[in-house]
């Protein structure tokens, strides 16, 4: 501690090390949070359902997505990324997951919402297996922290199905 430069160096390195520890503790404190999210998706309408020239089935649907994800937010949350995926089985693939819609929730106030929307991304199959297909809709979320570990989870909603014939 014999010179100005030496003391400044010690102070800065110690301060930054402590800052790293504080961020680690902040991330660990996220484990104390027990979230209780809820969500519901209704399919309002099948807009059209056709076989594309390449031979793949495609469907366009309108959904009403409502959710309460406020309990996911902590003091260390920057934003929550959510997306809705359709999951179903085909002879070729044991699991197909097609992302239909996503959004970024920047703050707790915006985490309780409903939205009436058509699918943001195309619902296309690898093949023509969708007629009369039963599928699940899952709402996934990624809680992105300000510092530290990201938590991800989902809610699976079952019981949806597509029409037997193209329209």
């Amino acid at each position, binding site marked *: *501690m*014999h010179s*100005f430069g030496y*003391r*400044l160096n*010690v*102070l800065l390195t*110690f*301060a930054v090390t*402590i*800052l790293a*520890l*504080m961020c680690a*503790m*902040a991330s660990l*404190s996220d484990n104390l949070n027990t979230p209780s999210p809820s969500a519901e998706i209704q399919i309002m309408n099948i807009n059209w359902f056709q076989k594309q020239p390449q031979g793949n089935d495609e469907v366009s649907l309108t959904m009403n997505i409502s959710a309460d994800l406020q309990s996911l937010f*902590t*003091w*260390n949350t920057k934003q929550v990324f959510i997306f809705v995926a359709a999951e179903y089985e085909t002879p070729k693939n044991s699991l197909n997951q097609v992302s239909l819609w996503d959004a970024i929730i920047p703050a707790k106030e915006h985490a309780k919402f409903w939205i009436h929307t058509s699918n943001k991304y195309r619902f296309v199959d690898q093949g023509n297996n969708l007629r009369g297909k039963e599928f699940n809709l899952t709402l996934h979320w990624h809680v992105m922290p*300000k*510092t530290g570990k990201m938590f991800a989870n989902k809610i699976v909603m079952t019981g949806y199905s597509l029409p037997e014939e193209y329209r």
Partner: protein
Amino acid sequence: MDWQGQKLAEQIMQIMLLGFAMIAFVAGYVLGSFQMMILLYAGGVTLTTLITVPNWRFFNRHPLNWLDPSEAEKYPKPQVAVSSKKKAIKK
């Protein structure tokens, strides 16, 4: 700074930084504001810098007694021994 001052500066620095870190973390957690934690800690680091880094007078209360230059002139400075080694190698 003198020796006592250096030790004091080090102690003050460590205690203040750790103290502000704990206060900032608790305040941020209780208020639910990450920003508050960072601001409080940054303020604490600045305050600690102002107190411990510059060479304040109170860090020099036990000054060292360096030898006066006029005293040092009176005694010859030690010479580096070179000539005897050269003769031994030549043979």
